[in-house]
């Protein structure tokens, strides 16, 4: 079923260019749903005005700039009717008929219910300030510059319409609706196919949320059911805590997910986060991530506390740079300092995430439930590629972790991608 554009008559009252008087309750609901959809993360430039667009979303085809979705009539979507809005969000078609690139997760948003679309529309028309400013134009190279080509992509990959679970009263159904539609978790966590499509858009597909890599960061599998390493070890409470605070006893958020925690999941009700957790726990983990965890290796702590640690070894570099917070047992001190032992980022198949964090540092988002924005300093100015590789190799293979060794070349490549050295943690030498 394709998204229904035949909206109930009642909701059409809200439509039309004179979008003055939506009731405050609907606007508030729309605001909440916009948070669930994390619209602000992509539609706000770094240090820009909210929803005014201009953030570059990286894709293999080039940077795609988000649009201004404030109710400004010239630069934003102020002249969109409810129907125009619905087509843009759920089908990826602009008011002028042009096709949006699927960096806008309309294949997921297609599942948003009519009522929720109407509430979102009420919020975007009445709940935010119009920003009269043009977002930068996206200019992909040929053939991707031909937006009409996306229509064939849609024909091939865009999924079916409104979720059957949109009005689900039970946590499992509610969680499924949030994850598959507004949450668009699959955008980052579902592996992509040759045409850059997500290999699965719903719980029925085994590829759905099975983990991927995006923008140089490995994204863990969110299939939290069954047993094994990674999310299957997290309880429902652990998932809820992570979504609300960006931290729990297994780790702390890094990379793009930080924006998701800040603007989206930390703003959701406990009940909705619990519904998401219930749904994720219902997805069976794949065999390759659910192999029995190896017995913990206590010898790491012993090696680190032994007086004889080679001066150029990973052990010694760990002691001098990491041990103050993460400790010899690799357990850290959550919720202040995340553990490295069993940390999904540290032992991910791809070492790019852990290399990234060592070089650039990381900062926890401040959320209503956990306002402490605890930061790990950047070590790019202090450690050579070889030293970072040694530390990364050490933490990926210690305390029972099972990551492969890292080479200095891998570090050099990521250092180049990150760009300029951040001087923040370097001592002042004057």
């Amino acid at each position, binding site marked *: 079923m394709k998204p229904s554009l035949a909206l109930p008559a009642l909701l059409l009252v809200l439509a039309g260019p004179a979008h003055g008087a939506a009731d405050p309750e609907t606007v508030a609901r729309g605001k909440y749903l916009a948070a669930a959809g994390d619209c602000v993360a992509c539609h706000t430039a770094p240090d820009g005005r909210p929803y005014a667009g201009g953030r570059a979303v990286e894709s293999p085809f080039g940077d795609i700039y988000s649009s201004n979705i404030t109710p400004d009539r010239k630069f934003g979507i102020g002249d969109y009717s409810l129907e125009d809005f619905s087509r843009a969000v759920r089908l990826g078609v602009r008011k002028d008929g042009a096709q949006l690139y699927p960096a806008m997760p309309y294949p997921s948003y297609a599942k948003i219910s009519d009522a929720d679309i109407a509430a979102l529309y009420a919020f975007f028309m009445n709940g935010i300030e119009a920003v009269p400013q043009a977002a930068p134009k996206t200019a992909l190279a040929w053939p991707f510059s031909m937006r009409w080509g996306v229509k064939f992509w849609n024909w091939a990959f865009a999924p079916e319409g409104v979720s059957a679970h949109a009005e689900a009263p039970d946590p499992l159904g509610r969680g499924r609706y949030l994850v598959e539609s507004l949450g668009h978790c699959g955008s980052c966590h579902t592996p992509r196919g040759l045409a850059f499509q997500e290999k699965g858009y719903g719980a029925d597909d085994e590829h759905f949320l099975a983990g991927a890599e995006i923008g140089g960061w490995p994204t863990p599998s969110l299939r939290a059911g069954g047993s094994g390493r990674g999310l299957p070890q997290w309880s429902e409470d652990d998932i809820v805590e992570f979504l609300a605070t960006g931290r729990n006893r297994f780790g702390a958020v890094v990379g793009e997910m930080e924006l998701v925690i800040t603007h989206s999941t930390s703003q959701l009700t406990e009940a909705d986060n619990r519904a998401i957790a219930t749904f994720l726990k219902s997805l069976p983990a794949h065999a390759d991530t659910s192999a029995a965890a190896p017995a913990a290796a206590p010898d790491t702590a012993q090696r680190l506390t032994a007086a004889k640690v080679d001066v150029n070894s990973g052990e010694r570099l760990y002691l001098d740079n990491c*041990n*103050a*917070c993460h400790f010899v047992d690799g357990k850290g*001190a*959550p*919720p*202040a*300092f995340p553990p490295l032992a069993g940390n999904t980022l540290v032992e991910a198949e791809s070492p790019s995430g852990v290399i990234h964090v060592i070089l650039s*540092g990381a*900062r926890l988002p*401040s959320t*209503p*439930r*956990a*306002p*402490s*924005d*605890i*930061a790990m*300093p950047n070590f790019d100015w*202090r450690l050579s590629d070889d030293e970072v590789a040694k530390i990364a190799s050490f933490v990926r293979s210690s305390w029972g972790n099972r990551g492969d060794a890292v080479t200095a070349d891998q570090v050099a490549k990521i250092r180049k991608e990150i760009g300029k050295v951040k001087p*923040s*943690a*370097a*001592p*002042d030498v004057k």
Partner: protein
Amino acid sequence: MARQEKPVDIVMIGLGWTNAIMGMELASTGLSILALERGEDRDTMPDFVYPRMADELSYGVRYKLMVRPSDNTQTIRHSPKDTAVPYRVLGSYLPGTGVGGSGVHWNGHTWRPLEEEFRLRSYVTETFGAKTIPEGMTIADYPVSYDELEADFDMFERVAGISGKAGNINGRIQEGGNPFEAPRSGEYPMPPLKRTYNDVLFDEAAKAMGFHPFPLPAANASQAYTNPYGLTLGPCNFCGYCERYGCINYSKSSPQVCILPLLKRQPNFSYRTRADVIRIDLDKARKRAVGVTYLDENDEEVFQPADLVILGSYSINNVRLMMLSGIGEIYDPAKNTGTLGRNYAYQMNGGYTLFFKDKYFNPFIGAGGNGQCMDDFAISRIDFAKEGFIGGSYINAAMTHGQPIRSLPLPSGSPSWGSGWKKAAQEWYGHVMTVGSHGSNMAYRDCYLDLDPTYTDRHGLPLLRMTFDWKDNDVRMTQFMKNRLKPLMDSMGADVVQAAFKEPGAHYDIRPYQTTHNVGGTVMGHDPKTSVLNRYLQSWEVHNLFVMGASAFPQNLQYNPTGLVGALAYWSARAIREDYLKNPRPLVGA
């Protein structure tokens, strides 16, 4: 003509511990709150981050986090007969500046005063007779009791996240804690820090002589901890860079770690840095504050209108700002008139250094609040009539750091340079522990603060003048400690035992570091004739002005002041929130 900013409901001067507390406790009123901080903005990342902080020369020796004397200092003299000269090089005390204030660079010793200290004058008079108080000593009771503040001490300890062991919970003495402390309603939020070798040695020796040792109450987290505001501290790793440094590890309690991340989320709170307040402005009748005037980073004068002013800068700066604003009458010791600047007091400290050839302490494993204490010579446990002084000390075997420039104590007589010094340094580094006596300091008629007639700051405003010297009473107190501790020190088996206590006739020396516990000058009291603030820290003169901090202490405690400073801020905030804002007026009838 000063630039004028948009009015706010509440303006706070300074953004250290007290105004961070005040901001948080008043944010729920929905009133607009603006903090003006004279120094720079500071946060753990990027300002205190590892390994930048482990730079003893910049921070420990050159005082990078402290106020620069060229920006703001005091003139100092020993007596009203002398001419005061400026404190041009920091030494004796180290006022902080910047967001977090001195709450960034402290060690974290967090005490509750004794019940007797709150009613010191009454206690001495009732117990030993009025004649025990010598001529010229101007000690007073606090206008608030320990019982009234107990809940506020508890709140501050839970917000700051204190590691310790209670010795008295609701009157029941607890094994391992301080049996002489005032009764607490509950345990400390965290267990004590891990014990170091000096702690263990002192503990054993003190117990063997019948004393009652216990772990120092430390604002250094012994484990991961989440406070009542939902803010998180990480466990202290004993890095040994605590006092004079910002904490690299979210382990030392500070406004940055314990309050500001939540305060900054409040939509009705904002702050400006590099906003140096030079005056609290009053209405024509001089009964109401109408705002404050500050100099911004370009030295442009700015008027900030506000309905309520909370003065929470460093204690001696509070006193100066009141004087520059002309609020109240400056104290004159000759005529004994005025209250502003009266009862300035300091801290009488001494200590033993013990050198052991056969013991090695790993001194670089240190924490600001690492120490084993005893309170057997507390104010409440000394017969003042018999001993001939008023006061007391807590005893502290601390090991806070082994930083190379400043922690190479050598036995006296060791060469101070060349190969002889090198040999001695090699022989003794790490073989030393100290036992300190941290003592009270009474208030006196001729120890006070006023404005200097000669010296001004770079804006042409008069510097604060400090008139202060040691008095026989307090020297006798510290000599008592020296003598009583001697047998205990001798019992510990050290090869060399060295004492450093003020001797009779000693004068205040501003050069060596002693303590940043400058108190008094805007003291709180029952009587507006002898105090500046009432029991809610509200100005007697201007009822919409409240003054935080240790400048309210009528004399100094035997303990570090921050515990009481924090509790008084919570106490005052409650009075403002629940009473004053509903009906702004003097909360105590004068």
